[in-house]
């Protein structure tokens, strides 16, 4: 009786200690879940998901407080990729967050810009250049088309236009 208990208990304890040691000492072999989720998001930083940027949203998905269907710029493709990564069901895009826009980019109608500089802090990727009392402009290459600069503009001089085909990216 005692022999049987020991036969099972000793290896079980040994394995348990071994695993505990390994978990503490050995480095995790995968990057944290947040990173992997963040890598799938489109990095528009538009906050339409209800979180202030892609990384915060990724963190929220990782700890289970957010759904995977709240990213309009990523659209169906991103939802599918997230579903596959997390083993969850691919849901349709949450309409409360918005609809999937095509790739777009902000353009300032320069004749109408009054140089108020309010759109500058709104841009999550610092893609608008300008200073108070000077004309602003959008760096097309860096703009993610997140629409966050539209609201602060007092004269509504910012348009979102579809992205032009990228030279060199297709042929």
């Amino acid at each position, binding site marked *: 009786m005692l022999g049987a208990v020991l036969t099972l208990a000793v290896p079980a304890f040994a394995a348990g200690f071994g695993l505990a040691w390994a978990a503490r000492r050995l480095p995790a072999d995968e990057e944290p879940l947040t990173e992997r989720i*963040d890598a799938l*998001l*489109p*990095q*528009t*930083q538009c906050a339409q998901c209800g979180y202030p*940027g*892609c*990384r915060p949203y990724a963190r929220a998905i990782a700890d289970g407080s957010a759904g995977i269907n709240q990213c309009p710029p990523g659209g169906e493709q991103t939802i599918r990729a997230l579903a596959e990564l997390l083993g969850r069901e691919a849901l349709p895009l949450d309409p409360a967050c918005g609809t999937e826009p095509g790739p777009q980019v902000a353009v300032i109608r320069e004749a109408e810009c009054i140089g108020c500089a309010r759109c500058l802090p709104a841009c*999550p*990727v*610092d*893609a608008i250049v300008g200073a108070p009392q000077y004309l602003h402009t959008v760096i097309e290459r*860096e703009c*993610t088309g997140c629409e966050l600069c539209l609201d602060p503009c007092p004269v509504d001089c910012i348009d979102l236009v579809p992205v032009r*085909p*990228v*030279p*060199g*990216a*297709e*042929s």
Partner: protein
Amino acid sequence: MTAPTEGLSRLHGGLRLPAQKTHSTGAPIREVAVAPRLIMPLGRKAGAAARPLVAAGDRVTRGQRIAEGRPPVSANVHAASSGTVAAIEDRPAPARDGGAVPCILIDTDGDDRLHEDCRPLPDSITRDPAALAGAVEDAGILGLGGAAYPTAPKLAEGLGQGLEALILNGAECEPCISCDDRLMREQAADIVSGARLMLTILGIRECLVAIESDKPEAWQAMKAAVAEAPEGIRLVQLPTVYPSGGEDQLVRLLTGREVPSGGLPADVGYLVHNVGTAEAVARLAASGEPLVSRVVTVTGDGIAEPGNYRVRLGTPMADLARAAGGYTERAACLIMGGPMTGVSLPHDDFPVVGATNCLLFTREPPAVSGEPERPCIRCGECARVCPVRLQPQQLHRHAGPVDEEALALFGLDDCIECGCCDLVCPSHIPLTRSFRRAKAALRLKAHERRKAERARHRFEARERRLSRREQAARERQEDVRRQAGAEAIREILERRRRGRGDED
């Protein structure tokens, strides 16, 4: 036809195609009169265009530099004849993506005056590798085999790589094209002297000239030219198999070495240049004339006088067609390049560019078999003929909705788009087209990924900056509070001391 040289390696797959070259090889190369208007594109793609050095209204002369290239993506552009700059505007380029590129339009004056700086290169330059390489770069010489990659950066790739030999590509394996054949027959001596100049730049002694066995006249002419000064240059006769003239295929045939996936021939010790490019280098040395013309094969049953024509770069294709006797009633399609790899153009209002080795006017596009596409029956014929030893049927399976991982696994990037698989497919699947599309889709995806990566960096940098600013503000506040606190304590102590003093 003569027998191929002994001791060559074998090319995997490939096809023996009907050459269809005889009706353009009969007559010597004819010079085409300068067109009234030349359209000179400043690059192959919009993002990589050369910077114009002239403005509308300027007078220019033949050989004058009118745009400064940005190596390695674009080369200098020179006026192909004398005249007045009419405009600088965006025009569609004769290329597969057909995007607009900036072009300089020249109204020619008919004098065709040469620019005063165009003088034969002195010995001090032709003997000095660095100076000669600089002259080739200044002259804006492009690879004239069909890809039009600037020659100077390509030569520079070979420097310091421990090159074994320069390979001059005179294979011209694609049907219908015969400009290299005619050039070798008529200007063999120039090609050889161009090869010698290239060898000087590279600092090596060995040169292999590869010619397919279906060009006996070119072989004889080249042999005679080489016989005058034989050291270092060796002629090699290739079996007539398409696509033996592909760079990597040629290296494999001649040397048995395999260019690594994603690598260049220079990685295995060879550099491949077209015979036409060598002739352009020789022309530069002999007359100082930069790249302003090339030989173009004009052929097909849609043209009255098929043949080879030396034509100024920038000449509208319509003018070239007129010089070649005009269209017949069977002209319905225009293909730039050969029937296998050429680009179908929607009209003839494009200029002749460095990549224009052939204009093919036909009744119907040669790539289309006319039969409807049927499902793949997995016969494996395509894999048998693929010169790169890919599995086109597998690629095709994963190219529908693009499966990036699978396509990378099956080596989509190594596909040279030769079109052999299309020809043998019993189900008439346009394989090459689907590979091209898949490549474009992957490029777009990669571009989006890069963009997202950049946005993430910028977002994170901004977050760091904002939090740093917030932190600094908090510290300042803390400091003020601490200072205020210290002052209050001092005040209390002071008061106490005073109080005690009062009691005493």
